Every structure is written in C-alpha cells, then in structure tokens.
C-alpha cells in the first residue's frame, strides 16, 4: 500500500515538467506502432483476399482497373502462367507444413508468418495482371484457391496472435489467448483436422481480420484520397499544402497515443476470450488436473500397498515364524530360543522403522503436529544445506494445500541438494492476497530446466490441481529461484490446550 501511495506523489511533478520533445517522441512512437498494426491489418487483408481473388479471377468475374485496355494474353503467356501456377502449388506444400508445425507448437513464433506467403503472392499476381491471369486454367486455379484457404486461416491466426501479443505492451490492453488446447500427440487424424474449425476462436480470428481489414483499407483509402485532394488543391503554390499537412501531422502525433488504447480495446473485444471460451478453457483445465490428481492418488495407493506388502507385512510374517520356532525350541534348547527371540525383536524394530518411513511419505508427523512452517523447518534440518527460513503465516492453509506445498518444497530442496551444488538456501513463506506464496532460492550453479526430467513437470501438475503455479528462474551460473503460489484461505491459528 505504501508503495502505491508514494508513486503518484513523485510522478505528478515529473509529468508537469515533461518537455514538449517527449510529447513529440511519444507521438512518433505511437504512430510507428500504429503503422505496425496497419501492416498487420493489410497482411490480414492479403491472407483473406488472396484465395478469394484467385477464385474470382479463375471464374472470370474479376475485372480490375481498365480491363478494356488490357491486351489479351499473347500466345506465349500461357506458358508463363503455368510456371506461376506450378510455383504456387509447389510453394503451398512447405508453407502449409510450416504453418501446421507452428500452430501445434513445434516451431518458434516467427515461423507463423510462412503461411502468409502463398495468399499474398497470389493476391499480388492477380493485382499485377488486372484479374486476367488464369490463362484458361480455371479448374487448376479454383483448386489452388481452395488449397490456399488453410494457409490463409493459419496466417490470420498468426496475425491475430501478433496483435494480441503487441496489444499488452503497446496499447496497455493485455489480451488473453482464447484458443482451445491442441489435441494430444496420439489422437486420430480426424480430430487433428477438425480441431481448428471446431474452435470458435478460429472463426472469431477470421471475423476480426475481415472487420479490421475492411476498416483499415477504408482508412487507408480515405487518407490517400485526402492526400491526393490536398496535392491537387495546392498545385499552384506548394506552401498551401504545407499548412494542412503540418496540421494533420500534429493531429496524428496528438491522437496516436490516444488512439492506440482504443484500438487495443477494440481488438480485445474481438480477439479476447468470450465467456464461453473462458468456460471451455476452465473446463479443460479442470478435466486435466482432475485426471492428473486421480492418477497421482492411485499411484500413491499402489506404492503404499506395495511398501506394506513387501515391508512391514513380510516382516510380521517372518516374526511370527521366528516366534513359533522359538516356542518349539524353548524346552530343548533355550539358548537357540533366546537367539530366535532376539531376531524376532530386531525384525519388529525394522518393521517399525519401515512403517515410520512410510508414514513420513504419506503425511509427515511434523506437518500434522505443527503445520507448514515448522515442517519445512524440520525438513531443512535433515538436509546438508545452510537454510535461512523467513516465514510468516498467521494461520494454517487447508490440509490438502498444506500437504501439497510441503511435498513441493521437499522435492525442490531435494533437487537443490542433489543437483544444484549449492550450500545455502533461502526459503520465504508468506500469505498475501488470498495466496500462499513460497519462494526458494539457492546459490547453486543454476541451469535447471523443466524440460529435462519429469520432476518439475510433475510438481507443476500437482500444484495445478489447486490452481497453483510454479515459476522457475534458473540462469546458467545461478542463482536458481523457484516461486510457488497456491490460492487459498488461512484458518485461524490453532489454539493451544496446554
């Protein structure tokens, strides 16, 4: 709270002293960003118009510009057109594959631009040739236009993604990603093919691109018309154009920073997840975490059963047999009976030790007795690390959260002592804004990667069951910092009866 209170107090005088140059630079930056959005808009238009223009041209419905003045294609051009079609067809394959690889998350973000290439090329080709381009190959062109549609869809998805990504930092309007998760690796081809069209967000992307591109094209056309008018009006005296031109520039610099947030909100209204999409995402998340939780529970049951069966149970059987033998021998050979009794006792001690370890793995006594902070403290005492524990929990989290948090910390500390080559660990436990927050920092060698080994992934999954998150920062050379956050309420502190 105090931080919030002090920021405006220092920021206000600064704003008063802001020089006019920063006003201009802000305007220029905003205009540049606006141009980038314009570029994305025009690219979206190309992605949509490319296949459409090709299809219309193939059907002979497209007569652009002064069609009458265009000379009919010379006899040699048919061959040239065939080369063009062949090139486009050949280009379609790798571009589609690259687009699919991008959309399933196999390549980086920038690879998503590739599917934009065929529609854009087709559009350019059609425009250059004033719509008469088919050279008589109507069906071939229609087929090409049809095959180009997936590329166009992928391209609009990429462009919508870029708009979402940039809207946060540039317009101050962060937009969440509304897509349904991709089907898993081992699903049928039909589910893969049906996945994109079945996602309403895909159609909303297309709609956004259409609306945005129409608006963008109209705006560009209007500006071009205005500029043209101004130039014509001032043919006599160039200075006459400068006055409205300067005024327009000033207007642009002033309006740019103000228009960007508006554009961001407009984009969010169409590109952000709607209620339905949000619910769908939530349902997916819950289904996934539920199944992971059930799996983990079943696995733990199996482990406990196996441990009991192979450990304590077997030892008790052996003990019974040893005692039986001792009973037989007690008359004839008391010395041997005594040895057997000692063996039975040792067996019972070992069974107890195994049961103790088992209990520790199910629900550590320290956690039950004292709660999270002391249990973590106890954990720290068992490890060969210097541990600085700073904890402030006014109450106890619900038992399942407490247990999940404890085992998460336990696993992370075990990782530190095994892999990090660290000798000191700082643990911070706190509860703010209805969230249990734990941070673990070590002075080790860093370079921890969740992609290698299943430990961190499994941890993440188990925390996800509580809507908890795990954030890892581990640059090579260290330090490694892990933050856990689990939303939960705290119960009032336990009252002592003694």
């Amino acid at each position, binding site marked *: 709270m105090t931080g919030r209170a002090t920021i405006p107090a220092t920021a206000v005088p600064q704003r008063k002293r802001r020089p006019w140059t920063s006003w201009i630079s802000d305007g220029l930056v905003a205009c540049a960003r606006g141009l980038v959005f314009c570029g994305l808009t025009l690219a979206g238009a190309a992605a949509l118009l490319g296949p459409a223009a090709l299809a219309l041209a193939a059907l002979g419905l497209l007569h652009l510009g002064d069609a009458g003045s265009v000379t009919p294609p010379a006899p040699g051009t048919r061959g040239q057109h065939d080369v063009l079609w062949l090139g486009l067809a050949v280009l379609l394959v790798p571009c589609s594959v690259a687009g699919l690889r991008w959309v399933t998350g196999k390549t980086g973000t920038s690879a998503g631009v590739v599917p934009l290439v065929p529609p854009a090329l087709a559009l350019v080709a059609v425009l250059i040739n004033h719509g008469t381009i088919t050279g008589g190959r109507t069906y071939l062109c229609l087929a090409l236009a049809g095959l180009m549609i997936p590329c166009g869809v992928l391209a609009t998805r990429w462009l919508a993604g870029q708009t979402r990504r940039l809207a946060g930092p540039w317009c101050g309007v962060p937009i969440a990603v509304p897509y349904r998760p991709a089907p898993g690796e081992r699903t049928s081809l039909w589910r893969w093919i049906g996945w994109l069209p079945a996602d309403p967000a895909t159609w909303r992307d297309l709609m956004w691109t259409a609306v945005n591109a129409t608006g963008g094209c109209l705006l560009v056309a209007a500006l071009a018309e205005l500029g043209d008018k101004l130039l014509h009006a001032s043919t006599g005296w160039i200075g006459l154009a400068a006055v409205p031109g300067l005024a327009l520039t000033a207007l642009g610099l002033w309006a740019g920073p103000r228009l960007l947030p508006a554009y961001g909100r407009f984009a969010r209204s169409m590109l952000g997840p709607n209620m339905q999409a949000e619910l769908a995402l939530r349902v997916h998340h819950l289904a996934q975490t539920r199944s992971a939780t059930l799996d983990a529970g079943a696995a733990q049951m199996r482990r406990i059963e196996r441990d009991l069966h192979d450990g304590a149970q077997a030892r008790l059987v052996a003990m019974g047999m040893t005692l039986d033998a001792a009973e037989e021998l007690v008359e004839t050979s008391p010395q041997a009976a005594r040895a057997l009794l000692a063996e039975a*006792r040792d067996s*019972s*001690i070992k069974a*107890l*030790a195994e049961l*103790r370890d088992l*209990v*520790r793995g199910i629900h550590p*006594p*320290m956690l*039950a*007795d*004292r709660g999270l902070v*002391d249990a973590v*403290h*106890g954990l720290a*005492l*068992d*490890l*060969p*690390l*210097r541990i600085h524990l700073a904890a402030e929990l006014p109450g106890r989290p619900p038992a399942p959260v407490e247990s999940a948090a404890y085992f998460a910390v336990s696993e992370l500390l075990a990782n530190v002592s095994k892999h990090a080559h660290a*000798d000191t660990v700082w643990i911070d436990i706190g509860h703010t804004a209805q969230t249990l927050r734990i941070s673990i920092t070590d002075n080790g060698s860093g370079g921890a990667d969740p992609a290698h080994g299943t430990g961190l992934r499994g941890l993440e999954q188990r925390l996800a069951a509580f809507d908890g998150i795990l954030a890892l920062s581990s640059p090579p050379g260290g330090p490694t910092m892990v933050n856990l956050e689990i939303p939960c309420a705290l119960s009032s502190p*336990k009252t*002592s*009866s*003694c």
Partner: protein
Amino acid sequence: MRVVIAEDLFLLRDGLTRLLRAHGVKVTAAVDNGPDLLAAVAADRPDIAIVDVRLPPTFTDEGLRAALKARRETPRLPVLVLSQYVEPLYARELLADSTGGIGYLLKDRVLRSAPFIDALRRVADGGTAMDPEVITRLLTHNSSNTALAALSPREREVLALMAEGRSNTAIAQHMVITERAVAKHTTSIFHKLDLQPSDDNNRRVLAVLAYLNH
C-alpha cells in the same frame, strides 16, 4: 526410582509399566493426557516423567508441550519423551533450557529393555539421552561443515555416541576400546570443533548437541 507415565495407548502404557516394574522401577502414576500428567507430577514429585509426544485431545505434539510445561512448573524435572518418530526440531525445543535431564527416544528403543532402562536412569540423574536417529540426522545436516569433516571416522563415532548422552565409560564399552582412548578422542573432538572442554559429562554432551543443533 519413581516414575510417572503419560501414554494414551493402553497397551503401551501397560507394557511400559510392567517393563519398568520388572526392572525395579516404581510407577507412581500412569495417565493418558497432558493435564493429568501435570497433576500427577505436582502430586507425586517423581524422579522422572515418561511422556508420549502424541496425546489427546489433538493427537499432535500435546505431550511435548505438556512435558515442557511440567519442566517449567517443576524446574529440573527429568523428562524422557517417547515418540513413534523423532524430529531434530523437537530435540532442539527440549534442549532449549540446557539444564539437562532430558531424554528423547523412539518408542522402538523400549524393545531393548537394558539400554532403555540405562537411558532412563541417566536422564533421571540429570543426564541426556538422545535417540541415535536424531544424531544421525543432525550429522547429515552438518555434513558440509568443514570442522566436522576434519574429524576422523573413529572420532565421528565417538562424537555420535557422546551426543546420544553416553559417558566415556559407556562409549569405551560400546566401542570396545579403553577409556583413555575415548578421552583422547573427546579432547581431539573438542579441539577440532573449537568447543570449551568440560569435565562435567552432561555439560559436555549439551555443548556437542548445541553445536550440531545450531
């Protein structure tokens, strides 16, 4: 020797009572909760109280807290805390007043009656009895400590036995070496760990435990 027992499980309470009687120890009261323990300690003035960590109503660390409270009400009351599991943190809390007369053992140790009675007498005399598992865990925790790493394997063994609360004589018997050899080892340990040497057996143990349990 007169003993008060606080243990909520009837079978264990009964077994413990019988075991102690068999070794000539008088059990003045056997209770099953914390408040009754405090009342029995106040009424009977026993030589030692044997307390289970988990007692009703919460079945958490009720017994530990009752034991600490009993020691506050009756200073220097020897207390032997028994538990299904041992925690170095609880050991630290029990040792916090560093006056001795503290035992903290796994319940398993009762199964070997001779060493158990031995530990009981030691605590009743104001000594210390720490469970070997506590010591093992403390040594693991300190394994990156350079001073400890400088100890020879033999010295580490002596250190562990000493931390459990055993006297030089007991250590010598356990390791099958002479008492002089044990004394040599302990002197060396105290020198290497930079601890103040002390002739008083119990103060020596507490110093070692405090060092490990920092």
